[in-house]
């Protein structure tokens, strides 16, 4: 279906350009408002935010904070990925483990994780360990559940064909089950990545002396909105880049699924 909108003069607008236009318009409106009606102690226009970048990036404490957050995020995501796959594959592969373990996973997943955040700080301390642990607790579930779901999508006809050609269990796993799991593993990784980021930031905001989350509070409390926005922008860029990497990998891994049917 052609999504371009044609107006009476025959001018064609693509959704992408309109979207870009809306974003530009919003930034301009923000800029204008920043110079006229908004209180500079609370909000800064985009130009001031951009101007604040060199300042915050020059500050070695803040550079360190960005690195700390990045390290926590990567460590948490790595652990969540390894653990999610290590638990998800055996759970998804057999009917017995699926029936007995999946209800437990869903039970634990249904606990609102924010409520136990103080416990993470209590057990893991105020340093990076509690942030990583809390990030893992957020990231592991989407990964695990998607791996399990992937194992359920295995085509019975493919299993039968492989069996008829003499494939044993190991070969069937490697050549039939694994390829089926990969696309949904990658969607799990994408969701797990944003969940991990949420967990890490939440934990940083809750109680810490380092990381981006901590410094956004510092900037807020010292009425430096430009610095704060710049820091948030750094984090947003980090989130978008990581998200994009995983999304591309996901698309590559599932090319046959998108086009096959």
């Amino acid at each position, binding site marked *: 279906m052609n999504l371009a909108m044609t107006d009476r003069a025959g001018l064609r607008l693509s959704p992408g350009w309109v979207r870009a236009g809306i974003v530009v318009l919003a930034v301009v409106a923000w800029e204008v408002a920043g110079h006229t009606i908004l209180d500079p102690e609370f909000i800064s226009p985009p130009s001031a935010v951009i101007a604040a970048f060199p300042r915050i990036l020059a500050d070695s404490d803040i550079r360190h904070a960005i690195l700390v957050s990045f390290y926590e995020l990567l460590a948490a995501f790595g652990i969540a990925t390894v653990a999610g796959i290590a638990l998800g594959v055996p759970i998804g592969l057999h009917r017995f483990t699926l029936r007995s373990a999946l209800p437990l996973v869903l039970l634990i997943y249904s606990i609102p994780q924010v*409520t136990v955040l*103080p416990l993470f700080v209590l057990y893991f301390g105020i340093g990076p360990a509690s942030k990583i642990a809390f990030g893992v607790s957020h990231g592991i579930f989407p990964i695990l559940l998607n791996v399990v779901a992937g194992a359920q999508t295995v085509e019975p006809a493919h299993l039968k064909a492989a069996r008829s050609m003499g494939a044993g269990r190991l070969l069937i796993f490697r050549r039939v089950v694994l390829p089926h799991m990969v696309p949904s593993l990658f969607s799990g990784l994408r969701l797990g990545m944003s969940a991990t980021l949420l967990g890490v930031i939440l934990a940083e*905001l809750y109680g810490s002396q380092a990381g981006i989350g901590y410094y956004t509070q510092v900037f807020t409390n010292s009425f430096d909105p430009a610095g704060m926005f710049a820091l948030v922008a750094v984090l947003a860029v980090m989130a978008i880049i990581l998200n994009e990497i995983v999304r591309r990998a996901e698309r590559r891994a599932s090319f046959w699924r998108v086009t096959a049917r």
Partner: protein
Amino acid sequence: MTGTAWRARAIQIGFVVVCVLGWIYVGNARLISPIFLPRFDRVMTELLRIVSNGTVFVYLGVTLFELFAAYALALAAGLTVGFLIGRSRFWVAVFEPLLNGIFAVPIVIFLPLFILFLGIGIESKIAFGATYAFFPIVLNTIGGIGAVDARFVTVAQSLGATRWQMFKRVLLPAALPVIVSGIRIGFLIGFFSIIGSEMIAGLDGLGSQIVQLGEGMNTAAMFAYILFVILIAAILNTLLSLLQSRFNRVAAAS
């Protein structure tokens, strides 16, 4: 409920029982300092006390007030914006990636801003909860309308349906299950973000109470509050699923 569902429930209950027994054992054997893991019976006593003397309901009232205010805002904004965008494929293509992109960034990072603008009281919690709950509602509304089988639309067009008839008779009924599921997710996300924002910076409500007890090293009471919140979340979740399944049944029957 089917046999498998009963089995799953039995496994879950068994797991909870084993956890509680393990907890009691650890407490009796003094394996872990009670500051880290208070004895089970102490937590239960505490839970009974705060429920029977009503203290917990004061905090619950504050949190629920914030939640319903936030939810009302999110629902009104999410459904209106969702329908306005969802009616045209063009505007869906414009806004859906934008909204998805914003939702992929952890909005919690803006929490200090909400507090800066609206203060440390309930207003910032309401605004923050409403912002988080808005996204699933608006995205599911758009997605639900977008996923309506094109054949239905073609049939309705061939029968001469007007735009309004198309919306009322085809798009809305076909999209409702997806929209309702967004409404449910929005409610839960709203609840969790309000608890979270109370924890990070709040003076009142369940979240703030948990943190204050933790800071006072009154772990038994903190555990009691945490269990209470988990219980409330489970009750709200069950109510919502019941509502949702009843709603889907009615929608399927009509």
